[in-house]
């Protein structure tokens, strides 16, 4: 047997190795099922402490304005609430459907709900399923409304703060909201109208963000 093998040309040896590996493959099983990764509870705990798992609403607003598309924004609330209002470009996947969603592990995923709680739950579900780039929109939709759509003028503001507020006003306008100055603060809450939701993506249309990722020869 050994002599037979050593007498073969290099090409035939390689062919023989390939065939035997191929034969083993027949019974070796599914490569997608084979990956086992330990949940590293320490790194999960650490990321909650140094806030590396959170994205602020200001950051997100900036990305949307700049038309960045390397992330997937997921609204975890129910469909009814989603249809009422959601952040532009968001996709609706209610929390219960998160474990069976078609989200890809190599995407940057930003989760949000009304506040942090549901997003944190979704974050943990995805983390334990070995999703890498999962983030929580800090403060959720409440923070989005408060800081982006209807920012309040700072009291006794310094010059810098005022300049900052002018910027916030523009951002609020961009998203269809309105900054709250001293006069308008007196308005009752009901008068504040949420902007109408933008038309959301249909299914089976490739999300624009993917185009960038096309790889190949």
């Amino acid at each position, binding site marked *: 047997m050994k002599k037979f093998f050593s007498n073969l040309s290099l*090409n035939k040896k390689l*062919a023989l190795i*390939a*065939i035997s*590996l*191929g*034969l083993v*493959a*027949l*019974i*070796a*099983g*599914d*490569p*997608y099922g*084979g*990956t*086992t*990764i330990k949940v590293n509870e320490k790194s999960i705990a650490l990321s909650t402490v140094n806030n590396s798992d959170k994205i602020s609403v200001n950051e997100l607003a900036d990305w949307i304005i700049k038309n960045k598309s390397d992330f997937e924004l997921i609204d975890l609330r129910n469909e009814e609430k989603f249809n009422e209002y959601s952040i532009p470009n968001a996709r609706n996947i209610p929390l219960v459907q998160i474990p069976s969603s078609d989200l*890809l*592990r*190599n995407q940057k995923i930003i989760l949000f709900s009304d506040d942090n709680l549901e997003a944190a739950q979704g974050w943990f579900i995805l983390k334990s399923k*070995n999703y*890498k780039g999962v983030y929580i929109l800090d403060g959720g939709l409440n923070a989005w409304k408060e800081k982006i759509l209807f920012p309040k003028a700072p009291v006794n503001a310094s010059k810098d703060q005022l300049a900052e507020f002018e910027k916030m006003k523009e951002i609020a306008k961009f998203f269809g909201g309105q900054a709250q100055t001293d006069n308008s603060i007196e308005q009752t809450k009901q008068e504040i109208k949420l902007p109408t939701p933008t038309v959301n993506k249909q299914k*089976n*249309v*490739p999300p624009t963000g*993917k185009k960038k*990722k*096309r*790889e*190949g*020869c």
Partner: protein
Amino acid sequence: MNAPFFKFDYFNSDVSLIIAFVIGIAFGIALEKGGFGRATILASQFYFTNMRVLKVMFTAIVTAMLGLYFLSVIGFVDLSLVYLTQTNLLPMAVGGVIAGLGFIIGGYCPGTSMVAVATGKLDALVFVVGMIFGILVFGEMFPWIEEFFNSGYRGTITIPSYFNLSYGLVVFLVVLMAIGAFAAAEWGEKKMAAKTGKEIL
């Protein structure tokens, strides 16, 4: 330790550029060593007088496939993190025809033209200039063809999932196919050489 390293955050995107550069250099050397830096060798594949391209490609495919398969079976590589191209049926077929035509006419594919430029081939330089011009034209035309570009979207399709076969079986069949192709290529080259009386490069 798990792979892909980048997706598991072992290094950031700045470092990834350096690593890509190193891998790119190695890839270029491998292509040149494989004879892919010469248009005559590449073009003769289409006339079946020299089957080198088929042999090199199939060797690379089988090696990569077996490596990836077994590394992911033992749990080292997470295949779900490896990007797979999505399928747009008709646009891809049209693109394939255009790329194939360019390949025969120019004698290079985009990657090999870069290799040939690196070794100082003038025809490859012209090819690359043409390619960049083509990219420009494509970019300017894009609004008109965007609809077609995105049509026929089928998501990510793999052979095992489409034909409902096990991954192991597909791996085995591809190995058989490659070895069959090697044998056929050797046989065909001998026939062709006898017919044309020319030495194979």
